[in-house]
């Protein structure tokens, strides 16, 4: 009975799995105990029977021998019973262990299944003959077929390359595993999914190959992601490249600008107290360039002019403390030639995240020449202002002198004229006709000189008159002047062609004087023509400037003497031909020049003359002129003659 039970136990527990080995070991022990008990029992029985036979043969069987036999049987039975008990006990404890292992196995199986199902990768088991034996949910999804449809079908038929798929699992069978075996799944709808297979054999407890366990990895998304990553990488590379180029360019520009401007750039690391200099810094300081472009703060300090050092250091410390920007000016003693140079420095403190100044970056510029030039310019300006003041004084003196002389000349002229007249009146009977003619000459010459003096006075006065520009309606002004002058020339045939003339910007009485003198000249010099023709208008000059012109058909002039047109008292015609003092055009020139314009003339003897003039009237100048403070007094009070 014991044997049967043990046999069924063995049969029941017999398995090739690892977990069964423990039970197997126990079983062997039980059997050993059991068989030991049976053998011991038999040995004792045989030994007892042999003793009994031996004793009976020698006739020594007595009550003692009987009791020996009984005792031996008893001992054998007890021993046998003991061994059976042990075997039974052992069998019971084995059964307990087994039932515990079975429940663990069950849990583990569930766990594994869940794990397999939870896996996003399609998992599949394939039998050695290539049939699908199990799939997970991911496989169902990727193939588009239900589990029932998949199970038992040929593994390779779900791939675009069935041959390759077959090769794959066959290689697993032959080599034990494959890694990253590339295949493409075609699903129920024909959609393709690139996968990588990793597969290995699985065996039973006895080591017999049961099939292939294959895990696919969907490469489509990975490929997409890889593609995206690749694209992102490319974009990043491109951006880095662009940014690098931009930075390089910016840096180059900065370098070139700094180079061209002779600006030195420095970067002071406050913590290490080292300063990085660019090559211009070394040139500014007249020092040989250090190999790494670095130098210590102390080294910089040693170049600064001792008188400027305290202020500079204090200022630098302030920059460090405040984290800001500063502009400084100080002197250095240039290392190469011991020359004192003036440096302008601008710098900015760069703070680290804790708000403390970590670096100060700045520029140095040698402004010695600039300062020198500014000084020179200032000195020259001073000189110029002094000279201008002197000149103005001289001009005023000259004006005063001219005025005074002219003024004093008038009185004797009046006397000459007056007394000639008195002689003429009081002594008329005593003077013959020739005498009267001669007195007439004296008087007319005196009057002419009076006019000369008046013109000279007007000319001199002009220098002291203020320019007070206003908008002047040139066309009506020219017409009015012409009408006034024409009225004095009764009986003459004078025709005016007046074109449209835009307004100008000037000092009205002065510009009126210009028109008066020019129109009077035109009338005067056409005096010998039967018909006087005067044309007034504007034309466009160089760079679009407006040029006023007045053209006549009069006597004209020889262009060889054009340079003498505008000189004071300078005339191109004699007084008998055309009376005049030679001041008119000089006056015109002075007025136009004081307005910043130009005046010139063109002519041909006997064929008339044309006079041109410009008055700059750009908007800019207008506003500038209007901004000038106008004097309260219409005349200059300084240097007035008495």
């Amino acid at each position, binding site marked *: 009975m014991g044997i049967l039970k043990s046999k069924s136990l063995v049969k029941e527990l017999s398995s090739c799995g690892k977990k069964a080995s423990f039970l197997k070991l126990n079983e062997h022990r039980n059997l050993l105990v059991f068989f030991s008990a049976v053998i011991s029992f038999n040995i004792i029985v045989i030994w007892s029977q042999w003793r009994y036979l031996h004793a009976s043969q020698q006739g020594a069987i007595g009550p003692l021998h009987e009791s020996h036999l009984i005792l031996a049987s008893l001992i054998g039975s007890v021993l046998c019973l003991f061994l059976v008990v042990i075997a039974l006990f052992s069998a019971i404890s084995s059964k307990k262990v087994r039932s515990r292992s079975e429940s663990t196995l069950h849990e583990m199986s569930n766990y594994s299944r869940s794990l397999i199902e939870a896996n996003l990768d399609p998992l599949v088991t394939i039998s050695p003959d290539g049939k699908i034996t199990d799939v997970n949910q991911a496989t169902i999804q990727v193939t588009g077929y239900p589990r029932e449809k998949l199970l038992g079908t040929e593994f390779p038929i779900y791939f675009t390359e069935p041959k390759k798929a077959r090769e794959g699992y066959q290689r697993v069978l032959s080599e034990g595993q494959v890694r990253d075996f590339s295949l493409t799944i075609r699903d129920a709808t024909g959609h393709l999914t690139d996968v990588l297979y990793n597969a290995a054999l699985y065996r039973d407890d006895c080591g017999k190959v049961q099939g292939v366990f294959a895990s696919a990895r969907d490469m489509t998304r990975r490929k997409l992601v890889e593609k995206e990553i690749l694209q992102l990488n490319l974009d990043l590379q491109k951006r880095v490249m662009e940014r690098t180029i931009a930075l390089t360019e910016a840096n180059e520009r900065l370098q070139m600008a700094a180079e061209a401007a002779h600006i030195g750039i420095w970067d002071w690391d406050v913590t290490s107290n080292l300063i990085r200099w660019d090559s211009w810094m070394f040139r500014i300081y007249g020092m040989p360039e250090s190999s790494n472009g670095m130098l210590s703060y102390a080294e910089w300090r040693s170049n600064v002019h001792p008188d400027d050092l305290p202020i500079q250091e204090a200022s630098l410390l302030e920059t460090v403390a405040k984290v800001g920007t500063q502009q400084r000016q100080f002197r250095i003693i240039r290392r190469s030639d011991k020359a004192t140079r003036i440096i302008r420095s601008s710098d900015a403190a760069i703070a680290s995240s804790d708000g403390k100044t970590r670096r100060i970056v700045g520029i140095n510029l040698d402004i010695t020449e600039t300062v020198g030039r500014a000084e020179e310019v200032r000195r020259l300006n001073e000189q110029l202002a002094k000279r201008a003041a002197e000149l103005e004084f001289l001009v005023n003196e000259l004006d005063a002198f001219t*005025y005074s002389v002219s*003024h004093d000349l*008038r*009185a*004797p*002229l*009046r*006397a000459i*004229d*007056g*007394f*000639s*007249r*008195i002689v003429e009146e009081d002594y008329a009977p005593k003077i013959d006709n020739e005498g009267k003619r001669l007195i007439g000459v004296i*008087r007319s010459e*005196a*009057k002419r*000189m*009076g006019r000369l*003096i*008046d013109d000279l*006075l007007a000319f001199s*006065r002009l220098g002291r008159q203020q320019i007070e520009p206003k908008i002047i309606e040139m066309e009506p002004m020219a017409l009015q002047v012409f009408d006034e002058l024409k009225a004095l020339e009764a009986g003459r045939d004078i025709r005016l062609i007046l074109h449209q003339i835009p307004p100008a910007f000037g000092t009205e009485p002065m510009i009126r004087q210009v028109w008066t003198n020019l129109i009077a000249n035109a009338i005067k010099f056409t005096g010998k023509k039967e018909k006087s023709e005067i044309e007034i208008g504007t034309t466009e000059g160089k760079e679009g400037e407006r040029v006023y012109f007045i053209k006549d058909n009069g006597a004209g002039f020889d262009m060889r003497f054009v340079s003498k047109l505008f000189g004071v008292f300078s005339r191109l015609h004699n007084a008998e031909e055309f009376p005049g003092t030679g001041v008119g055009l000089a006056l015109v020139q002075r007025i136009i020049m004081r307005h910043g314009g130009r005046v010139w003339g063109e002519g041909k003897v006997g064929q008339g003359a044309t006079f041109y003039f410009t008055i700059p009237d750009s908007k800019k100048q207008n506003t500038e002129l209007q901004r000038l403070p106008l004097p309260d*007094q*219409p*005349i200059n*009070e300084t240097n*007035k*003659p*008495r």
Partner: protein
Amino acid sequence: MNQETTDVLLVEDNPNDALLAIRSLKDSNLANAIVHLKDGQEAIDYLFRQGTYSARKGLLPKVILLDLKLPKVNGLEVLKVLRSNKETKIVPIVILTSSQVESDLIESYQLGANSYIVKPVDYEKFFKSIREVGLYWLILNKPPIVKGTS
């Protein structure tokens, strides 16, 4: 000098101009009593009866023809003195000068001149100017009541 009415007081340093002015006035039969003084100080002494003229008993002139450019005390200073005195303040004063400087003109009016005549070089124009001044100030114009101080 007796206590006669002075028609015109001419203050002029240039004898020729003075002669021409007096002749113009007389030829026009405008003034008989013309006093000619040769500098500014003399004019002040005359009008305030001081110095050489302390014994003068005449009245103030009907009009003063005053040159600006005068020795010692110039015309504008004379004008200033006369206009700052209550008595001489009301005497009509005509500036008769060669000066065309605008500052002279304006200052003259500011100091209280009644008229400003620029002497023309041309004698005929000069004659006409003087005659018109005489006609206006001695005949046409009604002068303030001018009395002697004594």
